[in-house]
């Protein structure tokens, strides 16, 4: 019986300690006023398949292949305009090269170009050549306290000028991840 009481006391002290140390963090989470969401509406994988010499020579284009939806909002604690002055959509490769699944030499990331397009008002888009560093492809201004919601359509190109044609590359399956990140722009 005494042992049982001791256990109960230990448990009570444990949970009280847990409560004391976790409550401040809970408060911080509630203070987060920037909401950023990005999700793939369609075109969740980008398959380039080269099967003719023309494609090897001229490259391949997947027009308007991927549709990304974004939601961004920054507000103050009082519900007014938050501190950020805009937002950006970044993209980078998940590896240093387009990796071969076999023994073939990897393909440089520069073979792939990312060309975004969007109807979200007040945005600027930039075509980029893929690299392992984050690059801005869409940039939006400060929407105030209003949310930014919309679709970004992306065209992918592989082996098209100014990139070096893939003619002469060894047949294989190559892969790379594209990582899109939605970030706020701080003053």
């Amino acid at each position, binding site marked *: 019986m005494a042992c049982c009481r001791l256990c109960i006391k230990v448990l009570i002290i444990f949970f009280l300690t847990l409560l004391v140390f976790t409550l401040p963090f809970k408060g911080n989470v509630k203070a987060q006023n920037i909401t*950023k969401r990005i999700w793939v509406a369609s075109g969740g994988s980008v398959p380039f398949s080269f099967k003719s010499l023309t494609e090897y020579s001229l490259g391949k284009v997947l027009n308007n292949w991927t549709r990304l939806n974004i939601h961004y909002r920054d507000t103050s604690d009082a519900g007014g305009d938050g501190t950020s002055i805009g937002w950006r959509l970044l993209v980078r490769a998940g590896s240093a090269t387009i990796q071969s699944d076999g023994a073939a030499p990897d393909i440089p990331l520069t073979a792939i170009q990312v060309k975004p397009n969007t109807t979200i008002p007040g945005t600027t888009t930039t075509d980029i050549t893929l690299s392992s560093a984050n690059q801005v492809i869409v940039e939006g201004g400060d929407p105030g306290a209003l949310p930014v919601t919309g679709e970004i359509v992306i065209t992918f190109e592989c082996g098209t000028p100014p990139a070096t044609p893939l003619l002469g590359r060894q047949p294989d399956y190559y892969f790379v991840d*594209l990582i899109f990140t939605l970030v706020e722009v701080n003053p």
Partner: protein
Amino acid sequence: MRKLFFSAAMLLLSQVGFGQAVNDQAIIPVSVTLNSILRLTVVSGGNIDFVVNTIDQYTSGINAGGGDARYHTKFTVSASQDFDVTIRAEDASFLGQDNAANTMPLNNVGLSIDDSDAGGVAGTNWDLAVGVLALTNAAQDIVKGIANAAAGDAAQNNFTIQWQLGTMQGAMNGSSLLAQSLTPDRYITNVFLELVPK
């Protein structure tokens, strides 16, 4: 005791419940599939027929210098990767059709390779066999692709094999057909052109 555990469980769940589901990243896998393209097409001259019917042809051979288009085989290569082209005879010697016991050495037939119809350039896109080769049972390189330059279409890789018989040129048999005193017959063999990816 139950109340205590219930309270503890609620406390833990409440902590989890405050975690905001923020997903500010999207990951899209990109795949590149390079399918192998290796096409060798014999455009013309798929059947070369030498008919020896004069003493002069027995002594001097046919198509010395390789200029006669009747004895040309034109072929093209379309390849997505660098390549070599080899040539070899199917048999160890030409075989008589009237009498299978009759044979003629393969090296009575010679060949040279020409690229005058090609968009590519020898020394830049590929190296060609030099001089007159003798036909052999073993594979010989007639086109050796240069790294990162040989892959291309049929316009770039357009070649002509110039055949000759009994001319004693280059690596061919040094004796004339007459000196070899070959038994009259119709001698044949198949010749394989092989496209080898690098």
